[in-house]
């Protein structure tokens, strides 16, 4: 019913006593997430929304058996938090903060590769598995619904737009994964698509991409053997080259990362590429009908 994040994921919140940490702990609990502990150095013994607070991830893991963690600490401390989680045995790590230095992200992602840790983000809205009633992230709770569609997106609000239109169009979701908008993030379209391929409950996939980089082009190569219907929407059609559109990643630089090349590659790989977000549902309906 889901990939990566399931109801068995026992979740820690790093930075639980901050505003964001506190608010989203409440939201996650409300959604059904199994939040088993929070980290806030010096605040051991406190509770937040009934969740026990620990000084270190090490202790929290020992006491709670946590295997996943979501990080809300400010960007300059994010590398420390990520390594603390990984070295303490956390297997699924969601990095919410934006503005983490790229060199730090390289270090985090490299170490995650060594340890076999799945990193979602940085600069992500997180991951949600509606059928398992669990989420790790900052996405609004009400726009998702259990169902057969996997969604993998680079950016947040745009994925909400599309997830909500899927829900309204009758397409619930197995899991929605936000890869994050930074230049270096833990996942690629391919790494997430692999999970969707292996998940029998995921019958179709929506990719939400954007200009910049060549992640979509590489994904296209993989899609050739994917075997499930894919609809792709790409943002940044009207973006001028050389300008950063918000995300550090969203830039057409030196002729690379144009929408045309992505669209062409995905179409050639058999994906149905739509021009506007509101066209996703119809395209998906058509693609699923052909299966």
């Amino acid at each position: 019913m889901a990939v990566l994040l399931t109801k068995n994921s026992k979740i820690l919140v790093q930075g639980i006593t901050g505003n964001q940490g506190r608010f989203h702990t409440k939201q996650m609990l409300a959604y059904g997430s199994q939040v088993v502990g929070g980290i806030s150095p010096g605040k051991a013994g406190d509770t937040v929304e009934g969740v026990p607070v620990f000084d270190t991830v090490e202790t929290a893991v020992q006491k709670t058996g946590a295997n996943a963690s979501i990080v809300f600490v400010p960007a300059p401390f994010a590398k420390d938090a990520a390594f603390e989680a990984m070295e303490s045995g956390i297997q699924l790590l969601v990095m919410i903060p934006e503005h983490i230095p790229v060199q730090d992200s390289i270090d985090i992602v490299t170490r995650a590769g060594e340890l076999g840790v799945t990193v979602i983000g940085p600069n992500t809205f997180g991951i949600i598995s509606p059928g398992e009633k669990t989420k790790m992230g900052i996405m609004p709770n009400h726009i998702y619904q259990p169902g057969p569609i996997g969604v993998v997106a680079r950016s947040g609000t745009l994925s909400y737009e599309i997830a909500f239109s899927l829900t309204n169009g009758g397409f619930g979701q197995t899991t929605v994964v936000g890869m994050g908008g930074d230049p270096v993030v833990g996942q690629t379209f391919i790494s997430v698509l692999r999970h969707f391929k292996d998940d029998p409950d995921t019958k179709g996939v929506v990719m939400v991409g954007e200009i910049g980089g060549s992640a979509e082009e590489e994904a296209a190569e993989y899609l050739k053997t994917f075997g499930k219907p894919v609809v792709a929407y790409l943002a940044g059609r009207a973006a001028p080259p050389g300008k950063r559109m918000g995300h550090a990643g969203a830039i057409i630089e030196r002729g690379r990362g144009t929408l045309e090349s992505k669209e062409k590659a995905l179409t050639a790989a058999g994906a149905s590429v739509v021009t506007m977000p509101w066209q996703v549902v119809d395209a998906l309906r058509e693609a699923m009908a052909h299966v």
Partner: protein
Amino acid sequence: MKQYEYLAKQALRDHGIPIPPGRLVNTPEDAYQAVQEIGPAALKAQVLVGGRGKAGGIRFASTPDEARDVAKAMLGMDLKGYTVERLYAEGKLDIEREFYISVTTDRNKKVPLVMASLAGGVEIEDVDDSQIVRQWVDPRVGVLPYFGRELAQRLGLTGTLARELADLVVKLYQIYRERDAELVEINPLAVVNGHLMAADARLNIDDSALFRHKNLELIEEGSELEKKVHQIGLAFVELDGDIAIMANGAGMAMATVDAIQYFGGKPANFLDAGGGASVEPTAQALDVLVSMKPKVLFINIFGGITRCDDVATAILQVKEGTGIPVPLVVRLVGTNEKEGVALLEQAGISAYSDMAPAAERAVQLAGEGRS
């Protein structure tokens, strides 16, 4: 954050990479002294635009007097919209060959990438792929001299140049790593008297890492308007249309720009009001949009963290303050949608709940579009 050439060169020199003799020039008198000290020199405008040479941003001076005159002409001149405030006087080089080398981050492989070519002196995207050597860095290992020897071998360099390249790439990687560079590039990497020398250099620092490089002078690119919005802390890019746009989240903002264009309109800007912006910065951003005097103002919000009532409050605040003297189209859904829509309706503004008709309406109101 892009660094001026003279700062990039300074970084290279600090790490032991040879650069030509050079002096920063703030006044014509500086230019006189610089050429007196280093001899015939190029006077290079310190601005962050490409194609500086063709636009008249690089001129030569053989004597101190000539340098003074040239500097007088160049300082304060307009170069592709930027005012030239500083020059860099650099000794003329007798260049034998021009190579290219850079370190940057490979976003797909998620590791640093070293690119080098014997065909330097032109933009790397104009170099045929077969002439570019790429070597990826294992961040656990970093760049040790052997990495440079392998690079030199792939390039076909031998002898002194191979040795110097191996040494140089170690230092270049140190700059990339220690200074949190997105890009450090030497182009051309010149051969002068049989030795390598950085004839021109680019250094872009990761904005997110500025907190650990507090000694860096802040350099902001972009128009005055863009700088103003960046100071509010929002991402903003000016485009050349007339429909001003605000959305929340970079992806939504891009999609909104796309939607306006899809219906035949001309977007005036990209503005990401943030995934969870509060009333004040939203109002400030709206003020900036109004000041652009667009034909239409289009606000497209999918409230996740962002609360629709906050957005509505900001809109009303601006309406009652500066005023919104142009047609306004608002699409507002998500968290606290009812409250937000109610607030707007009290002020006579009706909100759309779907993106497509809202965007289409904005284009219509601007008198543009397919119809």
